[in-house]
């Protein structure tokens, strides 16, 4: 009883404490934190501070997921950007269509950190060269930050000076700049960065991972192309409302060529620098090309000539590693990671890859003897092409297909990856639930093998592909991934091939620049992929090349956004799978392929308002909201 009563007195005392807590005797300087002045008054402190700003950059790499945000580790579900467009679908959540890549609060936190840095740098003594370089770095970081904001929200408030806290709320509220002003601001910052940044730094590691003149030029080529596309294609999905009237979202078509010109100039600066080239530009044969292309992403450090800007990972088991291998290995080589096989490439992407026998056009997977692209459930009266092995159907495809995607029958880590969606019984009926068919004394299993650790597809569980394909690009074939945070593969954020493709697109869209150089750029990339026949420069060729060369590099989502084709494609749209089936109807068992809607996927529609995200907190910050949000 005594104990109970003292407990009550304790609560009473606490409550009195709460009641009278508006005193300032708790306002002590924390002993476990370093005050900002201590860090930012010292050149080495500023270097450390800068390193964190690079970490915070909105880079869409291995640890970016639209829902979980940047630098997201742990159980993100691996809901990656490539699953939103026509590159892939998620094995567990095939109907994930939440457009929620918010970055408002974190974006302005980073902006504030950059402003604080700028304020402090002015007070610290540096040599003139050091000061210029840091000013260039600040412009680069700022441009990177505002590029992420403008592509998500349209025009945003441009705040380049640190705001002091005050209770005069009105003075803290900064109205939005127009979308045009914001793009122009990003480009102007990149011009400052290009001017002030060094062309290289002390070591190759530092040169590639820290902003340089060429990183700024590469980013400018990307940014200007984005702005130009919005201007040119705004009318494909025009919006209306206050934000549009005020110019906060939208660009006039008359601005398009100015931005295309900026993209062309920035790309030409990189192309003419003599500092960069494609990694292994002249492969001996397609097999060679596939190996080179795989290595470029498996270990970018062997291919630094192609790298303009990259992010390093390291310290397996710690917070600077990632889980890309864990999430995406096939079920058969899961090696104990709890969630595998998540990113499933879809047939729309696979169809885009050319065939060496028919250069210059997309080469869709043909499954029926009439040579037409046929889609739909298995139909006993359709004449399917019969293949003796599962990989035969992919013969002659572009090397990058084999280097980016694991297909049925592919060899990966010394294991043949088994992906099979069912069996056609000798009487023409289908078995597509787990089971067996005994035919002429042989037992056949629905999914290609007896136990689930011997196959990688179509069982319906999240570790199995539901599209017929699995991801290969970026995965480390040499690694064994048994638990979390074991991947340390570096990520190339800006690479030379993207600059070439930006150039080709800007030239073909605007008619500015050099058609000859753009054609050369397009064909250089194809040559590196083992192609020997040059193709002409046109929009179809450039866009197809872009989608296969940059697949899974988180570019396609923004291509759909900036070119305003998202709502045209995703209009009651279901992505397509390629389902291999073992056909027991003939004298010999054979593989046939069925092109059909991804099992479990439902029609998906992109609402036009989602070309821009909603701005959070408009009731408090007084900003004009984006249309229809």
């Amino acid at each position, binding site marked *: 009883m005594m104990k109970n009563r003292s407990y009550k007195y304790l609560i*009473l005392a606490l*409550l009195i404490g*709460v009641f009278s807590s508006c005193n300032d005797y708790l306002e002590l300087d924390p002993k476990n934190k370093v005050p900002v002045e201590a860090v930012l008054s010292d050149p080495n402190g500023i270097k450390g501070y800068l390193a964190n700003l690079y970490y915070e950059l909105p880079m869409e790499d291995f640890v970016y997921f639209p829902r979980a945000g940047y630098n997201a580790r742990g159980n993100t579900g691996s809901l990656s950007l490539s699953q939103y467009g026509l590159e892939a679908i998620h094995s567990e959540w095939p109907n994930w269509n939440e457009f929620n890549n918010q970055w408002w609060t974190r974006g302005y936190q980073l902006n504030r950190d950059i402003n604080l840095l700028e304020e402090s740098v002015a007070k610290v003594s540096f040599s003139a060269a050091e000061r210029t370089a840091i000013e260039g770095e600040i412009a680069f970081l700022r441009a990177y930050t505002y590029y992420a904001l403008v592509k998500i929200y349209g025009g945003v408030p441009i705040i380049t000076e640190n705001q002091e806290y005050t209770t005069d709320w009105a003075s803290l509220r900064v109205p939005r700049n127009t979308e045009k002003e914001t793009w122009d601001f990003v480009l102007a910052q990149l011009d400052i960065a290009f001017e002030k940044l060094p062309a290289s730094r002390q070591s190759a590691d530092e040169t590639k991972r820290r902003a340089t003149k060429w990183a700024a030029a590469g980013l400018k080529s990307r940014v200007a192309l984005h702005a130009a596309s919005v201007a040119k294609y705004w009318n494909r999905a025009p*919006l*209306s409302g206050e934000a549009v009237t005020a110019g906060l979202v939208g660009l006039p078509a008359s601005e398009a060529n100015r931005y295309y010109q900026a993209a062309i100039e920035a790309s030409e600066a990189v192309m003419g620098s003599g500092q960069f080239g494609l990694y292994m530009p002249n492969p001996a044969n397609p097999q060679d090309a596939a190996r080179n292309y795989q290595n470029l992403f498996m270990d970018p450090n062997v291919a630094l000539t192609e790298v303009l800007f990259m992010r390093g990972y390291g310290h397996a088991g710690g917070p600077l590693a990632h889980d890309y291998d864990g999430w995406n290995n096939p079920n058969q080589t899961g090696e104990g990671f709890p969630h595998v096989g998540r990113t499933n490439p879809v047939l729309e992407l696979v169809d885009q890859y050319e065939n060496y026998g028919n250069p210059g056009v997309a080469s869709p997977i043909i499954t029926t003897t009439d040579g037409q692209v046929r889609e*739909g459930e298995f139909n006993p009266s359709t004449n399917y092409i019969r293949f003796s092995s599962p990989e035969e159907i992919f013969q002659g495809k572009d090397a990058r297909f084999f280097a980016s995607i694991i297909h049925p029958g592919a060899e990966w880590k010394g294991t043949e990856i088994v992906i099979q969606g069912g069996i056609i019984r000798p009487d023409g009926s289908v078995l597509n639930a787990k089971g067996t068919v005994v035919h002429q004394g042989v037992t056949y299993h629905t999914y290609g093998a007896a136990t689930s650790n011997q196959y990688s597809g179509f069982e319906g569980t999240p570790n199995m592909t539901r599209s017929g394909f699995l991801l290969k690009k970026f995965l480390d074939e040499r690694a064994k991934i048994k638990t979390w945070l074991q991947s340390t593969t570096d990520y190339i954020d800006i690479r030379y091939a993207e600059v070439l493709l930006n150039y080709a697109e800007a030239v073909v869209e605007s008619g500015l620049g050099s058609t000859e150089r753009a054609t050369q750029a397009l064909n250089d990339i194809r040559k590196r992929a083992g192609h020997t026949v040059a193709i002409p420069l046109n929009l179809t060729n450039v866009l197809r090349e872009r989608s296969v060369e940059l697949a899974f590099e988180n570019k396609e989502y923004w291509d759909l956004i900036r070119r305003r084709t998202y709502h045209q494609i995703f209009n009651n749209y279901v992505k397509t799978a390629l389902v291999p089936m073992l056909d027991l109807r003939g004298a010999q068992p054979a593989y046939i392929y069925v092109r059909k809607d991804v099992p479990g996927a439902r029609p998906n529609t992109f609402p036009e308002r989602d070309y821009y995200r909603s701005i959070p907190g408009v009731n408090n910050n007084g900003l004009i909201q984006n249309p229809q949000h």
Partner: protein
Amino acid sequence: MKSIKTFSIALVSLFLLGGCELNELDNYDGPDASISGAIYDQETGELVQQDIINGMQIEYIEHGFDNPQTQFMVVKNDGTYRNNLMFSGTYTIRPVRGNFVPVNSEEVVVSGATTKNFNVQPYIRVRNVQINKKGNKIVATFNLDQTVTNKVVRIGLFAHREPNVGQPLNSVSSLVNLNEVTNDVTQYRLEINLDAYTSALKAGNEYYFRVGALIDAPEAKYNYAPPVRIGI
């Protein structure tokens, strides 16, 4: 003992209330009014068919606030709408992003059960609609009567098991890109071959079919004829 307990509870409540100003309760009234109505063709007086999903919206802004947020209502497929949870007051209201020539906003005083209809000029009237099953095909024939000089982008026949069928909600659609200015005498014909969609449209079931046409105007939505139910 019991009195101590009661006393401490009372004391705790008192402190809590005093601490967080919880004595200022939410004492506002709930929604006390409703608004309903429909979108009518100003010439024919017919309801203008809409889409409930990703269709037109009615924008409304309540007066009397410094920084009011724009709110939205959706309109049902038949062109009617209703919101039973409105607060009495004055509103600026406007139907937007529809399949009709944009209209100006109006002020509406909402109190009790308010009715507010909108008379609009639909971009296109879909007329003389015949949708029938002929053999193993669903065949739709219709005329288009466009009220503006823009081009008609495309026409479509949409099928779904729900009566809310339309461009945003269909399991099968047959689309034709026109990109031309139409006249009201040309008869348009769209078909769905049931043999090609045996899994989406199963024999023995009933489905709704609806034809529509899309004008080339910013943010325009399809104009439709009412859906027709057909057993296949």
